């Protein structure tokens, strides 16, 4: 038997390789530095790693091919997601640096796991095979399980990590079962036809696809697995606990990155590959989206903890972005991309403010502790106001444009009633965003809440995300233009 060396196109996963290499480097370098030293270089190295990854990812813009044994798609879509995730991660690194500064938790593992998680999310975006999707999913999930429990002295953190891990493992099993069923039905795990196989997409257009019961069952299980990652109802149970217990910068990164990576896979899988099957998956996703929007918004109303409030808000947002996916048209694709990119920046900013106020001890995270923040720290309160308004979808913020785009797509696809339900959920959601504003502006308090973190890096993260939220809400043309060009798939 003659062995034929496969064409190894490492450039396809260049960004991921850059991140993993940086992570290994971090682990080794840190191992040789004695304890008790200033560990500023960890954040610097991680930033450099992400910088390289962004450059490598950006260089793939315009390419359009399948590589690495047809497992990885190199297209604008993947590039868009990869770049966004890397940007989220860089901001998280900066925030974490001030969060961890001079603490026993400031260790190479934190940054290394962050790098691994980001690498997994990036891989997820370009995965063109269900096995690759699973691999990427596990890479970032396992990293996040550890990161959630990184506050080693905190029982809450441990508990939430445990919960996240157990439920996550459960959902992974569902996902795996889904892959098995899809394979059983189609005889392939590959997305696209070519290279001797027809792929799932090819199978669906071929005549063999007359009986799709098993495939639909498998797709249903895939929805369970991915729905868990994006925190869609009824797979959302872990979200509030994990968000509350995790270190605040990590919570922000989870909300921004996990959601983007998982929805990216859903977009590629459902809107592109499984498009001929939309009559089957649409009703499921519509039910999920409606439940997610309404339940997330309603349950957020009664939260007293800011991190839990933002957790429920992130559940609601998962529902909003699903409407773009359900639309399954060009505007839905580009709208979802825009939505997730801007939502990520906004939610990172919101958690950056939470981080700055709470500090490493995670104090002052109740809504009541934000009383009169505007009078103590007008700029911080102003930034949080901007984030809240953006999450609520008020014009001149990026959140409004995102909502406008995905609901627009749904209306274009004929689902105007879904948009109406979404708007009603938004009104409910507006109520709890207003609660935050009420507490900050309209209730006075002489306790004099002071930020626990005063580092320049953390503040610059707040500033940058606030600026992005505002600017992308006014000048949204260029980004939506990019997002539209990013809907060029390998297909």
């Amino acid at each position: 038997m003659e062995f034929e060396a496969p064409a190894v196109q490492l450039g396809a996963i260049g960004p991921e390789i850059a991140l993993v290499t940086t992570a290994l480097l971090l682990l080794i370098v840190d191992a040789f530095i004695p304890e008790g030293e200033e560990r500023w270089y960890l954040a610097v190295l991680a930033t450099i790693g992400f910088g390289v990854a962004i450059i490598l990812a950006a260089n793939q813009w315009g390419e359009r091919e399948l590589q690495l044994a047809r497992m990885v798609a190199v297209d604008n879509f993947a590039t868009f997601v990869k770049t966004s995730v890397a940007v989220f991660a860089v901001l998280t690194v900066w925030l974490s640096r001030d969060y961890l500064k001079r603490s026993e938790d400031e260790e190479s593992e934190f940054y290394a796991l962050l790098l691994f998680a980001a690498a997994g999310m990036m891989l997820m975006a370009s995965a063109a095979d269900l096995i690759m999707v699973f691999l990427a999913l596990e890479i970032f999930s396992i990293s996040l399980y550890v990161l959630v429990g990184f506050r080693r002295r905190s029982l809450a953190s441990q508990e939430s990590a445990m919960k996240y891990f157990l439920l996550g493992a459960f959902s992974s099993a569902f996902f795996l079962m889904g892959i098995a069923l899809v394979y059983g039905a189609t005889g392939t795990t590959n997305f696209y036809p070519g290279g001797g196989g027809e792929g799932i997409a090819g199978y669906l257009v071929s005549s063999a696809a007359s009986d799709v019961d098993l495939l639909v069952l498998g797709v249903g299980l895939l929805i369970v697995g991915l729905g868990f990652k994006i925190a869609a109802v009824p797979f959302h149970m872990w979200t509030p606990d994990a968000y509350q217990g995790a270190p605040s910068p990590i919570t922000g990164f989870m909300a921004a990155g996990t959601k983007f990576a998982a929805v990216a896979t859903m977009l590629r899988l459902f809107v592109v590959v499984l498009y001929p099957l939309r009559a089957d998956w649409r009703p499921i996703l519509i039910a999920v989206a409606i439940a997610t929007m309404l339940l997330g918004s309603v349950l957020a109303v009664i939260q007293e903890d800011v991190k839990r409030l933002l957790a429920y808000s992130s559940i609601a947002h998962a529902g909003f972005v699903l409407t773009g996916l359900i639309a399954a048209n060009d505007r839905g694709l580009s709208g979802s991309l825009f939505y997730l990119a801007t939502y990520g920046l906004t939610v990172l900013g919101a958690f950056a403010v939470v981080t700055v106020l709470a500090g490493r001890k995670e104090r002052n995270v109740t809504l009541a502790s934000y009383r009169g923040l505007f009078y103590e720290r007008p700029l911080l309160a102003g930034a949080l106001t901007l984030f809240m308004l953006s999450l609520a979808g008020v014009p001149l913020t990026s959140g409004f444009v995102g909502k406008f785009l995905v609901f627009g797509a749904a209306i274009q696809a004929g689902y105007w009633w879904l948009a109406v339900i979404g708007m009603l959920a938004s009104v409910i959601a507006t109520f709890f965003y207003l609660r935050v504003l009420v507490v900050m502006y309209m209730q006075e308090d002489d306790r004099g809440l002071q930020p626990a973190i005063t580092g320049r890096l953390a503040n610059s993260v707040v500033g940058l995300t606030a600026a992005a939220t505002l600017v992308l809400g006014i000048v949204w043309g260029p980004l939506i233009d990019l997002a539209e060009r990013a809907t060029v798939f390998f297909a």
Partner: protein
Amino acid sequence: MSNFPFLDVVIFLPLAGAFAVGLIPRDNDGALRWTAFAVTLVTFVVSLGLLLNFDSDAAGFQLGTDVRWVKDWGVGYITGIDGISLWMIMLTTFLMPLAVLASWTITTRLKPYFVFLLALETGMLGVFSALDLFLFYVFWEVALIPMYFLIGMWGYANRIYAAVKFFLFTVLGSLLMLVAILFVYFNAGEGATFDYRALLGTPFSPEVQRLLFLGFFAAFAVKVPLVPLHTWLPDAHTEAPTAGSVMLAAVMLKMGAYGLLRFAIPLFPDAAREFVPLVMTLAIIGILYGAAVAVMQKDLKRLVAYSSVAHLGFVVLGMFVGTVEGMSGGILQMINHGLSTGALFLLVGALYDRRHSRLIADFGGLSKSVPVLAGIFLFVALSSLGLPGLNGFVGEFLILLGTWTAYRWWVVPAAFGIVLAAIYLLWAYQRVFHGEPVIEENRVMIDLNLREVSMLAPIMALIVLIGVYPKPFLDTIEPAAERTAQVLKEGSVASRDGAQQLRRHIVAGPLVPVLEED
């Protein structure tokens, strides 16, 4: 001078002023107040340029700008005014300096206060000038935020409840409008655009029109407000600081009525015609209900708030009877209500500053200690209840005339509303200013000072001017009113031909000068 972009300068001058105020140190009260006053005054002066350059005979929209905002999505920064928006803008810029003067009594957190007040002005002016549905929606919501903060941060005891209620009601309506806007956008056929002028005359089947009209109507009916969507209004008006109440009543409510005229009727005339009986019924209920509830109020500010419900009922009635008289009367009455109710809120605010109470029972016999205040209050109350010779009469007369020609007996309940208005206003005046003072302190109240008189005097002058010589106002209003009335009467977008005819009818003549074409 006609090339000077008056409209855009007027819209954004207050926002620039807000930034300027933001740069002033927060404890420099004098500088903050005078800067805000200067900005609003200059805005008013510039807006006079609009008045001078406005051509009442020209059809379509004038003095505007047309710049692309987001090309791919057909979103543009498109502004322009006609006879309706002109007066709404003038009303806003005219009342704003007076509202700033009324804010002299605000002593805490002046800096954010004036920032919000000025941002509010930009939002409201934008609503009246936007000719792009996306832009309109943006301004519509942007006007909401500062008002939310004004009520919530500087209002009275129950301010937070009022602010949140105000916000949620409005957002509920406007999000439904957003769905309708998007639906129009995606179904307008040729070339995706939010340009109102291009979207006019988009054919829609009657069923679709009905839903779309309801979408827009939800937003506007909440804002007007029409019964039963009015419940936010008494709370918001009562709890807001004086300047907030003035702008809320005088301008913000008009945003709803304006939206009906500008968007809901011309875009979906068949559905609008279908809903005329319903809207008229709601308007009549509003007139009677608002007036009846006002009679029973113990709180003076709440009384004025409920009188707004009644007055806006008149405005909507006039707009929907489908006659030129009714339409012109409705539009004129929007100005009148802005002036008289604005003045009433200023006066109630002045009373509150002196006695820290708004309860009618806490006053009595004030006419001896504060004769000027009492006199002005009586004057404004008479204007508000429609005494001939003052502004309110002209508007209400035109509305009743228009109603009479179209619907005859509908005028009876409406006229009864005027009687009720006389009752609640004069009875309140009597209880507050006449009789023997119940409480000793009322004997030694300080009368209006120069600042307060100077903020009331311009309003009184206009009240008289419109009352005796409404012609210049009506001359500019009528062409636009006539066009809209005719659309409501016989316009139709159910068929393609009718739709094109309607479009030519409204945007006939030269379009807004195009600054940038691509």
